[in-house]
């Protein structure tokens, strides 16, 4: 099945360039999203099966793959809307790159060895570069350059971490080993090697996860990327980075370096929160502010993982819900820019008068992303705080709460300004486009899921999250 998925995806990309027809491209893109859903269902029904030697359908990978399946249809739909005015060549490149990106991310989720995972992560950089450069402007070129350069440098560092695993094993084929084969050897390894390998992997894959200190790469990419692409960069692509770090964390968790890894994750998480809060207070660009919000959420995920115990559940639930809430906000950004003609906060205003349905998405999205009840993210953040109290990590708890207050203040004042106030400056020329409220349906559905999960968590979700950290010490 997986081989078929990769082959069909490749054929679809080739067909897009062969036919050069807008309708056929649309048909192929929709067909791909349906195929992706079928792949997720297949993985659910064949859990823990291995295919093509290098891929295993384990719970964490399947969970993240399912998130991508859920987001594939709205991303493709909003992509159709965004690229409506583009010429055929740009339209085709956009959709071919989108299919390629989603295929590479799927490969990364299901990879059962570090090197294969690394190859797919590196490959996502190339696909996403095409999407960031979609508008072909000078600023898009600069953002794409920064993204490709910093990601490649970071991923090269991650590869050094993987090679360090080879030093533990002592054989040159170590890089080809699966996570399960490596886990047997971990307890015999020199802890110093494990620490260095973990640090390399953490710093390297932080470029994808968007954690401090490599967060700048995704922030700049968001400034120029088309909003549906930002939705993917901020959610499913960050999940790829999280997964890579989480895999190594799980692998090393039975070794004596577990407390070291927890401390490093909490430190990186707190610094991410600090940077996010600081920059959100002076944010002038709406998409950059949302990108810093992703940094804040990934910081919380890192802290949750570092806390351990109930924190593992909180981290994975946060990953799921953040993906839905943040993607719906980014889809809304596409509509907002069509109505207001800008992303500059000073030029935005009166959104409620101009587009009430979009304003409602912004209000619901704001409540969801800030983890204010009835947002499901509240459950995650509550579990993180609970874990910190149980561990007596009062300094981390108080610092995190203070920084979260800054984030809440920064985001809510700016969103309220956009929705209810007049713009501070009127842009010189904006051509407002009428947006149909029906275009917000997918955003309301995703935000609805986030709210429902606050009150009811379906058993299949609880089970798959519990299975995802079953190898970790309780």
């Amino acid at each position: 099945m997986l081989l078929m998925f990769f082959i069909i995806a490749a054929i679809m990309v080739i067909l897009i360039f062969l036919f050069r027809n807008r309708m056929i491209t649309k048909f192929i893109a929709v067909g791909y999203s349906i195929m992706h859903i079928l792949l997720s269902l297949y993985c659910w029904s064949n859990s823990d099966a291995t295919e093509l030697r290098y891929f295993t359908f384990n719970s964490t990978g399947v969970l993240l793959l399912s998130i991508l399946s859920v987001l594939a249809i709205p991303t493709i739909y909003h992509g159709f809307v965004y690229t409506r005015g583009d010429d055929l060549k740009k339209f085709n490149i956009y959709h071919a790159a989108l299919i390629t990106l989603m295929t590479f991310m799927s490969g990364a989720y299901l990879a059962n060895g570090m090197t294969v995972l690394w190859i797919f992560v590196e490959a996502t950089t190339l696909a996403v570069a095409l999407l960031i450069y979609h508008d072909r402007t000078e600023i898009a070129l600069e953002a794409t350059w920064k993204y490709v350069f910093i990601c490649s440098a970071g991923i090269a560092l991650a590869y050094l971490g993987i090679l360090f695993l080879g030093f533990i094993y002592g054989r040159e084929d170590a890089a080809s080993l699966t996570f399960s084969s490596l886990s047997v050897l971990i307890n015999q390894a020199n802890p110093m090697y494990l620490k260095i390998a973990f640090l390399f992997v953490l710093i390297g894959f932080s470029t994808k996860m968007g954690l401090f200190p490599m967060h700048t790469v995704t922030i700049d990419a968001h400034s120029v990327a088309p909003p549906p692409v930002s939705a993917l960069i901020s959610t499913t692509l960050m999940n790829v980075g999280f997964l890579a770090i989480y895999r190594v964390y799980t692998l090393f968790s039975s070794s004596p370096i577990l407390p070291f890894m927890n401390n490093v994750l909490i430190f990186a998480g707190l610094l991410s929160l600090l940077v996010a809060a600081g920059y959100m207070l002076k944010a002038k660009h709406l998409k950059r502010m949302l990108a810093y919000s992703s940094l804040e959420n990934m910081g919380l995920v890192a802290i949750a993982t570092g806390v351990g115990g109930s924190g593992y559940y909180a981290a994975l639930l946060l990953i799921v819900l953040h993906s839905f809430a943040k993607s719906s906000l980014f889809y809304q950004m596409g509509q907002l820019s069509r109505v207001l003609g800008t992303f500059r906060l000073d030029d935005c205003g009166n959104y409620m008068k101009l587009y009430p349905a979009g304003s409602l998405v912004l209000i619901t999205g704001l409540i969801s992303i800030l983890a204010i009840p009835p947002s499901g993210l509240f459950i995650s953040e509550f579990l993180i705080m609970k874990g910190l109290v149980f561990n007596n990590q009062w300094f981390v708890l108080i610092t995190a709460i203070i920084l979260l207050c800054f984030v809440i203040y920064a985001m809510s004042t700016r969103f309220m300004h956009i929705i209810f106030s007049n713009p501070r400056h009127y842009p010189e020329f904006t051509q407002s486009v009428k947006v149909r409220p029906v275009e917000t349906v997918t955003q309301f559905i995703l935000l609805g899921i986030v709210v429902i999960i606050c009150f009811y968590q379906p058993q299949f979700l609880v089970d798959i999250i519990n299975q995802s950290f079953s190898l970790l010490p309780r």
Partner: protein
Amino acid sequence: MIIYLIVFFAVTLIYFASAERLVTYVRLIGLQGLLLCGIAISELKDVNTANLLFIVAETLLFKTLLIPYLLSAIIGKSGVTKVHRQALPGFYLILFSIAALLLSVVLANSLINPFVNTIYMTIALYTLFTGLLLIVTHRLIISHLIGFLIVENAVFIFSLAVGSEMPMLINIGILLDIFVGVLILGFFGLRLKPHTNELTMLKD
């Protein structure tokens, strides 16, 4: 033989810290490619012919010829010949480079492992630190590119450090890295800010 090649490689790294002309950087990158080819051929005794050809193509074709050619094209287009926009004066860079060498020696010796060649480990760490130093202390795009290429060379040496074989999967990884390097150079390097060679637009 290998030891001479490795020492020569380390000398090129020290030269990077003291050089100021971009053309020198390009020559050093080409020379490093050649040295890596020699080190790989001498070290990888158990490698099969296909893999060996692969490695020779990686080092000679890409690292020694194609990448220096593209770098020269970027320098020619930008007209920038000197690394005159450093965040740090050159003297301090040499000091940092020496400190990095010492740190690499200390780290490699504290990580002694029966499976790993300490000399490789030392040079790989030193290459990594030099690449990162260039990225952090220089402001020109082309210096960042060269720093990235040095980090790539560090990855290559690390992959040699573990044994007399280089499996295909590692080769694929390294090739992908090189492909990204060529893409960065060929596509972005030739288009981005050709006259100033600095990044300015994306700020908070």
